């Protein structure tokens, strides 16, 4: 393993967790730097939650170490110093469920005091954090009257109420509607702005790629990639263009348009002929064109579309598309390895990835 960066605030070193004969997490090495957002991506059962629970000291690693920086010193997490080190970490483990008959002020006060926040400053801190989430009018209302999105905000507030430097969010948008998901993503970016380091797990590519500086992809307990989004995209070399036309095609014209697009665009995608695909998404009313990810090919496709009188009103390459392909490639590779067992097939994973 390379030398520890001076900027590293969390480090997983050869971290493994074994249940019986099964390695849920195997030899994970991740270094998280101060102030960055690291996305932890993988399908269900890949080992994300197990890793996070080891960090929270809810599970003890079978092998390896976790190091956390507090007051400038990087220290190894152990039973002896877990209180002290974990005071600098705020956790939100999956969906938060609250006692219905308490108010945000009451529960946040309890959590802040548990983590040693100065008693005289607690009330001010609660008001500041609640204000940051735009819930000041609800601070003394019973949580049972809150919507799911509001509860999730209180969950994130509970993770940062004691002012930790590191915030660990495990699947923070699971079960939320699109509006609430967007709000949670905005809060994650807001936390980064105020200097927090965020370790965010998800099985949704879109969610992670929207906010993360670096992404660790885990599958079958092993880290299969850990890099910046740009580098991962460069590795992927393939992507999907989303096109929306001024007039949405009628059902009877759709096949003709698709044939026409295939004829004029296939030579421009940079993909071998048998792997090419162009399809229409009825939900988003967009055409999707698979190409090699090269900006030159992207430009040629746009030029050709315009030259052929397609009234293009949107032409975009969502970043998640790139990552999705890379993810599927990486996961496919590990699925094809006969030594691995006990995991879902790639088709299942694809459907999970498309959830967003």
């Amino acid at each position, binding site marked *: 393993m390379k030398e520890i960066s001076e900027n590293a605030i969390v480090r997983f070193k050869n971290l493994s967790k074994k249940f019986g004969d099964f390695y849920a997490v195997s030899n994970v090495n991740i270094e998280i730097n101060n102030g960055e957002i690291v996305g932890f991506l993988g399908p269900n059962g890949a080992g994300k*939650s197990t890793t996070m*629970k080891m960090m*929270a*000291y*809810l599970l003890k690693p079978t092998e390896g170490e976790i190091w956390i920086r*507090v*007051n400038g010193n990087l220290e190894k997490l152990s039973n002896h*110093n*877990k*209180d*002290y080190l*974990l*005071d*600098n970490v705020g*956790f*939100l*483990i*999956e*969906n*938060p*469920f*609250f*006692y219905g*008959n*308490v108010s945000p002020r*009451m*529960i946040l*006060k*309890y*959590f802040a*005091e*548990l*983590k*040693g*926040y*100065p008693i005289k*400053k607690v009330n001010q801190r609660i008001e500041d954090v609640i204000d940051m989430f735009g819930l000041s009018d609800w601070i003394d209302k019973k949580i049972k009257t809150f919507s799911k999105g509001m509860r999730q905000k209180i*969950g994130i507030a*509970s993770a940062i109420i*004691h*002012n930790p430097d590191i915030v660990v969010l495990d699947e923070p948008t699971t079960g939320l509607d699109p509006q609430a998901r967007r709000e949670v993503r905005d809060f994650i970016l807001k936390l980064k702005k105020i200097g927090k380091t965020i370790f965010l797990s998800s099985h949704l590519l879109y969610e992670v790629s929207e906010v993360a500086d670096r992404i660790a992809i885990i599958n079958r307990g092993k880290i299969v990639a850990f890099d910046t989004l740009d580098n991962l995209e460069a590795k992927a070399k393939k992507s999907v263009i989303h096109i929306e036309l001024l007039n949405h095609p009628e059902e009877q014209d759709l096949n003709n348009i698709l044939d026409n697009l295939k004829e004029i665009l296939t030579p421009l995608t940079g993909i071998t002929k048998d792997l090419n695909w162009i399809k229409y998404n009825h939900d988003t009313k967009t055409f999707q064109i698979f190409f090699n990810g090269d900006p030159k090919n992207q430009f040629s496709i746009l030029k050709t579309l315009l030259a052929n009188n397609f009234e293009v009103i949107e032409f975009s390459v969502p970043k998640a598309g790139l990552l999705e392909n890379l993810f599927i490639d990486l996961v496919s590779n590990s699925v094809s390895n006969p030594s691995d067992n006990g995991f879902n097939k790639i088709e299942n994973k694809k459907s999970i990835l498309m959830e967003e």
Partner: protein
Amino acid sequence: MVSILKNNIVTEQINIERQKVGLRRDIMQINNTISFELKRNFRRFIVLLIVYAGIFFLSLLMNELLYDLMGEFAPTDSISLMQNYIGQFFILALIISAAMFGGSIIAEDFYRQTGNLLFPKISKTRLLVGRLISRYILNALCILFFYVLVATTSFIKYQEVDLKIFYSIGWALLYSFVLLCFVSFLSSFMKNTSFTIITSILFLLIVMQMVPVILSYSGVVENNEIPMFFIFSYFGNIISECLNMPAVRYETITHPPALEYSQWSTPSEFGAALGMIIYIIIFLTLAYILYQRRQSKSE
């Protein structure tokens, strides 16, 4: 400039507080949990005060309005009045309040998944200790409330309150802790709060009452000559019997024409104290072990 200075002061205070680890952290978190749980269970506490008041009025009804029908059992002085009030329905109130306060002590966090928020902010051990203490405080306040009502009645009727009432209070407080530990033990493996409450009430009211009767008739223990230390509800008898010590501990009850059986009416003071402490240790140890091993749905 001022806000930077303020932030630095807060950060410094946070760092000082975070140095409190080990025993100091244990005490701090237990203390925080007690305070939080007292507030959170306040409504339940009010409901149980009403239950205790109801039980008191039921006893009042029996002892005052049905006074003539009670014959030899009718109270004639402060001691017999207290014995009647405490011996009649008070045990029922103790069982209900222990079930209500203890039913949710562990099961709730697993059923409602509130544990996802609590851990790792606090360890299971500290949480359990804090909850037990806070709920025991509320339970004890309910019990004291009942005794205040009984003492007031005694004072109004006989212009005296026998000081033996304090013995009874002491035994009631100890026995209520045994019950709370028993319900906590049930809560450590049962699915949800409601199920724990119902099961514990039924178990304490029916099973525990039936065992001595079954033993008596079955002949397994001849004439019930062995004190029933193996039935922990037996220790509850001392709460009222202590007012009449040295009480008749082993008695033969005859219901004409043909029903006659023997039973132990109360343990000795030493036996009660020792027995209850042993049961507390057993129930708490089991509850703790099961709680530590129990995993939430998401784990």
